[in-house]
């Protein structure tokens, strides 16, 4: 029988692979940011799957805390990337006007 943590761990790896592929192949900045976020969720899923120890035992709290940290770091990076992208749009518009 497939263990729950194995199932979700493998799901995490597949999601990370999907995100990685899109992050390399996409050319559009926002799509790349989206892809890196999906990649991040995949990696987080591996952590949380590792923490899960069956229906009756309390899960390992350390990976939970790590993923919480990771989520905040990811949103910070997303914000900075979108800020840069916005600046680029503005600068492009200025050069088009000239």
């Amino acid at each position, binding site marked *: 029988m497939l263990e729950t943590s194995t199932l979700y761990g493998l799901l995490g790896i597949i999601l990370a692979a999907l995100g990685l592929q899109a992050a390399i192949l996409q050319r559009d900045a926002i799509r790349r940011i989206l892809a890196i976020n999906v990649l991040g969720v995949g990696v987080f899923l591996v952590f949380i799957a590792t923490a899960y120890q069956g229906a009756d035992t309390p899960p390992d709290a350390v990976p939970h805390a790590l993923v919480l940290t990771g989520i905040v*770091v990811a949103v910070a990076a997303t914000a900075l990337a979108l800020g840069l992208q916005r600046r680029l749009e503005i600068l492009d518009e200025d050069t088009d006007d000239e």
Partner: protein
Amino acid sequence: MNEAMALVIALPLLGGLIAVAWPQRSRCIGNLTLLLNAASAAWLLALVMQHGAANQLLGGWQPGLAIALHADALSSSFLLLTALVGLAISVYATRYFHSRQAATRFWPLWLLLVAALNGLFLSADLFNLYVTLELLGLSAVALTALGGKRESIKAALRYLMVGLLGSMGYLGGVAILYTAFGTLDMQLVGARISVSPASELALVLMTAGLLLKTALFPLHFWLPAAHSNAPAPVSAALSALVVKAGFYLVLRLWTEVFPEALSPQGAMLIGVLGCAAILWGSWRALQAERLKLLAAYSTVAQLGYLFVGLALLVSVDEGATRDILFGAVVLMAMTHGFAKSSLFLAIGVVQQHAGHDRIDQLDGTAQRLPATTFAIALAGVALIGLPPSGAFLGKWHLLSTSMEMGHWLLVLVMGIGSLLAAAYVFRVLGHAFGNVAFASRSVNAATEEWPALALGLIATLILGLGSAWLWQFLEVVA
């Protein structure tokens, strides 16, 4: 020792916070923080010298549960490098970012960058290292974007994406390691690790992620644009310190966590990539039309030497040769840190006075900016690896070990690399010393010129002459 470690981490962080809250005084706060940071890094180094390496378990919890800080000869050397280069960059940046708006934007981010570097060099916890890597990456990207031009923003965005992919690779490796070994502490993982698919894959993922951040050929594609389009003080920090952080981490992981899982083929691959980096980086540096681009490609090449050194290091058995190689690699990393920051700061001075950094229009620079030209020459001596610079001794030991081991190709590559480096350095100096008839009188701007000069002197003289001491320090303490 606990206090010194806490101080090294807390000072730049608190300085950054105060600089955010009190932007009117950000310049003073920044310089004062870097001054105190240099003092505390020196203090920590002295303590390590006296008492040997030390661990601190944050929060006082048991090993494994707590995040551990680890100060040894390697980390305290890199901390001192950061502190001294950081101080020089700060002095220069005080003049460079003279408008109030530029200053209030630069200083808090710069202090956070220093805090990230200090945290990274001290951390002995795999996940905590991820957080410091992200702090380093985001503040470095934000500083790159301060250039403001379209190219700077574009390079910053690319730098950010690449950095994120790199740290995700690293984090994926950490996830596998935690699944396999149930801990995040570097020493504990190192003790539990065995040769298995899990540890091999973790090694590959973490190394690949870090190599992407450290820009080892062919993963260097993002570096020239980012390093050459950032403001001069930021370029200096990126080339001298930020890429070193990735290298430092690979060095630590390979020698302390993964020695069991390393295979000769892996070391060989890194060595080959290092060779390719030396040749490609030097060749592109020779062809560069702008000084900053030259310096950026030279960083690609110099990183190649470090990785060649690392590859040699891990393929040598424990013993005297290995200790000497370790010292050589650290010495080269430090020399490059001082030399490259000196070069970038000097280029900044040239650029501000000439209004451009095109190499073929530099004639007369030596007459106008004698001190800065001298700094470029000093940095050049260290980059080529001429005596008495620290890089000379480092390269010498790399060469002699390669010869002993019969890696003649490596000897050849390093020889060609040095020749190419000499060529690109003399190409710059040739133009700089070219006389122009209507040379304006020489400029003497002390706070602008002396940081580069001081860094160049450290790279060529102090590190070269004091290298014996560094070897002893690394050997005795590590």
